[in-house]
């Protein structure tokens, strides 16, 4: 284990001898290089696979947005409401990649107050129209713009370089998204369809876990098993909240049920945060 050998020195340089700036920087960069090379080579197949998956989701997202925005433009409010949450799931699954475009993400997914009122558009703006004002009138322009932005996203996604780092950080980030906004009901504050986003984030994280799992099993079979079991627990809680083809409204969850979901995510995210061991040379 190449990296572990370094750890004696690294530990001291970073946590004890913080006065010695020289030792510190050299060892850190060496360490980074070592990790990155190992990771990039060994995980090449995995990053390619993930790229395919994420682009696939974005393609589905384009299609779903097409139907959704058309419904809005046609003034078909019931249809638009029905399409809203399922369409977003594709985006939420591919969040680690979609987020790379710092300019597009807010245009597509900003919530009220995230950006100045005049700039606010995208899914959540239309959500407010559909549920809060129960109208599509005046929202045609937002539908129009949203479609353009989503098409642009699709075009840009081809240029993204998928790195092991993106996967490792992305898996936990997806769950952090759940912890900080979905589980609190702040994501879809008008439609209360937060559970759809919740599920999609978990699925996105699970995909990454599945892709890294063969490598993970070799490093730490027990950890791999534990993460698998925790995913099962989260899904079995989510299954209790299924309704027709989708999920219950966030407002129909009791305080206890919200807490239960939140703690199950913490229980999953903690072992998942160890998935970075797949980058270590063995």
């Amino acid at each position, binding site marked *: 284990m190449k990296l572990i050998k370094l750890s004696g020195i690294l530990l001291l340089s970073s946590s*004890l001898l913080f006065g010695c700036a020289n030792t510190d920087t050299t060892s850190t960069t060496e360490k*980074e290089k070592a990790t990155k090379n190992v990771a990039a080579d060994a995980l090449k197949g995995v990053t390619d696979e993930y790229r395919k998956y994420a682009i696939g989701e974005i393609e589905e997202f384009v299609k779903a947005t097409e139907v959704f925005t058309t419904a809005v433009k046609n003034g078909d409010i019931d249809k638009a409401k029905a399409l809203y949450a399922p369409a977003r799931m594709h985006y939420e699954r591919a969040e680690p990649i979609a987020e790379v475009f710092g300019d597009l993400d807010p245009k597509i997914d900003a919530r009220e107050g995230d950006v100045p009122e005049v700039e606010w558009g995208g899914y959540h703006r239309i959500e407010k129209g559909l549920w809060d004002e129960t109208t599509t009138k005046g929202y045609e322009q937002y539908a129009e713009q949203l479609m353009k932005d989503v098409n642009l996203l699709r075009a840009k996604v081809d240029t993204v370089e998928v790195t092991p780092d993106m996967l490792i950080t992305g898996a936990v980030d997806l769950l952090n998204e759940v912890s900080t906004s979905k589980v609190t009901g702040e994501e879809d504050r008008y439609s209360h369809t937060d559970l759809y986003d919740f599920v999609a984030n978990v699925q996105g994280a699970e995909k990454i876990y599945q892709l890294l799992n063969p490598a993970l099993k070799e490093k730490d079979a027990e950890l791999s098993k534990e993460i698998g079991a925790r995913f099962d627990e989260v899904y079995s809680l989510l299954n209790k909240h299924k309704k027709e083809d989708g999920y219950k409204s966030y407002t129909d969850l009791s305080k206890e049920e919200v807490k239960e979901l939140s703690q199950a995510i913490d229980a999953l995210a*903690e072992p998942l945060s160890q998935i970075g061991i797949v980058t270590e040379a063995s």
Partner: protein
Amino acid sequence: MAKNESNSDSQGTISRRDMLKTAGVGGIGVLIGASGLGGLMSITESKASSTGAKEVVSYYGKHQAGITTKTQNNVYFIALDVTTSKKEDLVKLFKEWTLAAALMSEGKPVGELSSNEFLPPKDTGEAAGLSASNLTITFGVGPSLFVKDNQDRFGLKQKQPKELADLPKFPLDALEEEWSGGDLCIQACADDLQVAFHAVRNLIRIARGKAILKWAQPGFQRTKHADAKEGTPRNLFGFKDGTVNPDVKNENQVNEQVWVQPGDGPNWLAGGSYLVVRRIQMFIEVWDRTNLKEQEATFGRYRDSGAALGQKDEFEKLDLKHKHANGSYSIPGDSHTRLSHGNGSEQILRRAFSYSNGMDPKTGSFDAGLLFLCFQRTPSKQFIPIQKRLSEMDKLNEYTSHRGSAMFACLPGTKQGGFIGETLFN
């Protein structure tokens, strides 16, 4: 509780800060890089004795620390529910907790920094560079760990002591589920709140997937820094609180009152102690408009000196027969002191802390009170009869409300290489 002090608990050991300072000196750093951390420890450890840092309470021993230990400035108390259904997970958890608790008690992080930057650091980091601050971590198990919803969850039912049962309902109890019960508890006490919080935070993190937070309550006393004389701390009603307590330096007394003895019940708990926790809200706004005479009659003690009414010195033996000229008792019949004292046969080791949780959003008043923690050998002969008397008659009840309640058996201590809970699980 200023009198709680157990000398054997404190030892002169090096703090993390001292280690940092020493490590930075001259060229030692380079040398250490080659020889590893073990080398560093031995170099600094030999120097440590001269620094005289006395902020480490030793973790290992016959009893857990944090019970007869001199009361620290802060507590962070948490109750947990176990989510795993496997006993082996529970055992693994206690093993990991023991190691982590021992490290943190010495002011060390729970794990070293990995060289792999794709991993989150093992230790959460906010105590880096801080002294151990007399941190003690005390683990307990609640009745619901043994049997919950009539289920013998971990095959431990046979081992449940009779004394480890839910407390009876007392008159005036206003208990809330969100502040009550728990399968396990952790009491982290330290002279620094950040150090105490760091401890529970890391222990909870280690428990993810096995146990979850049920409720949590931090508490404080005046700091030793603020009271150089280290007199009895005052509670939020302004009265000295902790005057009368068993003498923790007297081995006979603590064996009599605090530590569970062999033969008391199942032997796994010998050397442990029962903890009763009550989260008691104090209506400080109401208290503050009560005249001094009434306040003193409520406790049966003078606010200024802490002496019992009609007496001079705080620590004087209670004179319960002392009467005013008009024939009424100086220490009133419904006062907290008279009622809690009873005939003196029941004693508990009180180790309480004040809490203030900001504003109560319902009333706009402070949500403040006492996190009442008390340790004892036999709850049915100690806390329960005392609280029964208090709940029926105590004048203090006009100003307080019991919101939370829990009972735990704090496990006996362990030796290096062993783990907390070994006597229960093996």
